């Protein structure tokens, strides 16, 4: 009870100077602004509540190299779905051709990412489609091929597969096969992904590896509200079809001071979240918070150990330079993702890095991933690459 009241009062002080709230469209509906710490989702991701990865002060935010150029300005303490909402508001406000569509987006979306958009921009620009992922993506391709900006929402990444043909055979190849006569770069396909604690087989998947294998597509996965807003705006404006996968456990659980300005973050560029000298650890999305916990466990168990944590951010094209530079420094690499091991994207990173850094490696590259099973319900915490498993991998790598 007491905790909740504190959370609410903290929530009301969500905007640090300057005080104007008008800019934050998502906060028009104040009942949806919530602080992170008590949310049930946060329980499934224990590191989230106290994570240092999240930028909770304005100083931290504007100190980061990629946001320095904003030179300050309004921020709002918002969560990931509100940050996505902000990005969508900006995209639709600045680009008359931009439309947002998918199942249930009109009333605000099952994860509230599209709150307030239909009333503000009209039913011709924000609308529900019939229940057909192949149709949703194809419709988006058609819109984009006519020069418009199409933001398609797939309700869960688990349901993207009916659209696989349209994404892999059509969107990815649209420019190449036409010799550049046509393209569908204006297409962005958003979808919630990854574990939520109780999602089971069909509300927990991470299908990034399937799409990494289709040249012509870009795949982006944000770790936090600030990242989500900047990367989503970059994805929408990128001249290529982009798949934007939003870790659903972070929608309400991850909160940051997000700049209200229109800003983008670079696609194809990883970010070093924590510098270290002994081992490079690469992850993306919600897994980074697990890795942060694992690093803390390992650094406590091994005095003097310092681990470098990298958020890949873009799965394809991925930032090999940042990862290779890091491995050349540390000599050790661990990659971790929720998706199953076999055919998972960690394999691609491992193969490429061992080519580049073979003689520098002090230990085999390790992958800590979901098991090669469908995503189970009752056994979720045995399935996921937990902090314990990741910490063990760090120790194994160090003692090789």
């Amino acid at each position: 009870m007491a905790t909740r009241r504190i959370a609410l009062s903290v929530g009301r002080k969500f905007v640090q100077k300057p005080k104007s709230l008008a800019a934050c469209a998502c906060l028009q509906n104040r009942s949806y602004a919530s602080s992170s710490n008590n949310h049930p989702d946060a329980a499934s991701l224990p590191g989230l509540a106290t994570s240092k990865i999240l930028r909770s002060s304005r100083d931290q935010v504007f100190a980061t190299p990629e946001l320095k150029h904003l030179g300050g300005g309004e921020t709002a303490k918002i969560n990931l779905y509100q940050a996505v909402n902000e990005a969508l508001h900006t995209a639709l406000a600045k680009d008359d051709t931009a439309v947002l569509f998918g199942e249930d987006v009109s009333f605000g979306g099952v994860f509230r990412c599209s709150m307030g958009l239909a009333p503000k921009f009209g039913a011709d620009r924000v609308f529900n489609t019939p229940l057909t992922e192949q149709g949703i993506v194809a419709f988006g391709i058609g819109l984009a091929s006519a020069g418009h900006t199409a933001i398609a929402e797939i309700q869960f990444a688990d349901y993207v597969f009916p659209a696989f043909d349209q994404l892999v055979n059509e969107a990815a190849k649209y420019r190449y096969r036409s010799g550049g006569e046509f393209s569908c770069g204006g297409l962005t396909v958003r979808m919630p992904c990854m574990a939520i604690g109780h999602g089971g087989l069909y509300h927990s998947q991470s299908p990034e590896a399937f799409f990494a294998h289709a040249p012509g597509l870009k795949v982006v996965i944000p770790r936090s509200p600030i990242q989500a807003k900047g990367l989503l705006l970059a994805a929408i404006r990128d001249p290529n079809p982009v798949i934007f996968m939003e870790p659903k456990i972070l929608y309400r659980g991850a909160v940051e001071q997000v700049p209200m300005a229109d800003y983008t973050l670079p696609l194809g560029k990883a970010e070093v979240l924590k510098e270290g000298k002994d081992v490079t650890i690469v992850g993306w999305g919600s897994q980074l918070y697990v890795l942060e916990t694992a690093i803390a466990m390992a650094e406590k168990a091994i005095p003097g150990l310092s681990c470098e944590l990298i958020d890949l951010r873009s799965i394809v094209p991925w930032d090999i330079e940042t990862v290779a530079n890091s491995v050349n420094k540390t000599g050790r690499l661990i990659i971790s993702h929720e998706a199953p091991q076999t055919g998972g994207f960690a394999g691609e990173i491992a193969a490429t890095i061992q080519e580049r850094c073979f003689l520098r490696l002090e230990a085999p590259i390790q992958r800590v991933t979901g098991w090669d099973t469908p995503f189970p319900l009752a056994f979720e915490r045995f399935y996921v690459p937990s902090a314990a498993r990741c910490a063990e991998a760090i120790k194994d790598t160090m003692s090789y």
Partner: protein
Amino acid sequence: MLLRALLPSACRAADRCAIPSNLARYSVALAAASRRRFKTSASSQNATSAAHQNHQFQESTPDKLNKVLFPGALGGSFYTESLHFIKDYPTIPTYRVLNTDGAVIVPDSDPNLSKDLCLKIYKDMLTLNAMDTILYEAQRQGRISFYMTNYGEEATHMGSAAALSLDDMVFGQYREAGVLLHRGFSLDEFMSQCYSNELDYGKGRQMPVHYGSRKLNFQTISSPLGTQIPQATGAAYAYKRDGKKACVIVYFGEGAASEGDFHSGINMAATLEAPVIFFCRNNGYAISTPAHEQYAGDGIASRGHGYGVATIRVDGNDVLAVYNATKEARRMCVEEGRPVLIEALTYRVGHHSTSDDSSAYRSKKEVTDWQKTDSPVTRFRKYIESKGWWSDAEEASWRQETRKQILKAFAEAERKKKPAVEELFTDVYGGEMPWNLKEQKEKLRAVMEKYPVEYDTSDFTAGLRS
């Protein structure tokens, strides 16, 4: 409110009349939703009853109390106490203008196209036939890798293309070369794509007949069937948002209409009111699969009803019928902002492609019978001859002329080199080339230099750019 007022006197059984007040408002909403697609008046109820001619529904009181109020009953359904499964649907008639002798049956249905347009249509049909013959032979001789002919479907191409403008975007499947020809794609442009030479707009990346032309508003063909259908819906929606006084047309065969993409495309066009013409070339075969193994219903046209889309079935071998239907369909799209479904029944005279020998699944006699009895080219020839615009002499002269032009373009296309090998790596992405492609290009360069014989580039304008 209205329903409650009707309750007392019209009621026969109390339970049927007790409409909860919170449902009453749905009847208003339903009426509004139904307005566009279905008439809920008595006349449409009669039409529906007439449709099931062999069975009379035992209806309860035919008044507003009988109306179904569920939110899903968009068509304004009414209750019945008869347990009756609808097993027969009325067959959709096939619209035509010309009989097989090329004579206009009902004078008013003649669109009275100009002489210039009619002669262009006819000469294009002959050009298309001649180009098909020469390129089919070229594949047989190993000069190009693959080809698909258009024999038998010339009227579907020319009739529809003539009813549209260059502002109308075209999404094709692969058997619509006549549409491109009508729009002005040159023989050189056709040949360049088939030969994958340096002038191919597609930069040599795709198999022959995968044409595309930005300037002619004709989207590049892709091999997967039906994928273009919902894409056309999206493009049409863009046109609507732009306020363009134009439509999109998407062509597909009766086989492709079995793909999920067809259903999602037409359903989305209907619900989102996209100005797109769905043009089905029902030519009776999907490679070897005849129509009766493709569907059990009344063709593709019958599906329009299911999606709430205005529909017509036409004689696809009748240029003027196809023209009239497409013209009106375009008007409906542009002026009423709604999709239209046209099913053009025709016959695929040629093999599916150069990889197919259709004598394996149909008799040669079946094909020649069709050619003799109902040739779209012959029917239209008779029409223009009846107008005094064409003669045997002009036929011979044009056939000779067009063949000469085709052979010239053919020889030139064959002489040209392929695009630079560099184009293997470009256009995968817009903007900067990602590191993996740069790296792979260098790997290829290294092995090309080491193995100049295996990687001979003399047929290409250039190798990799440095």
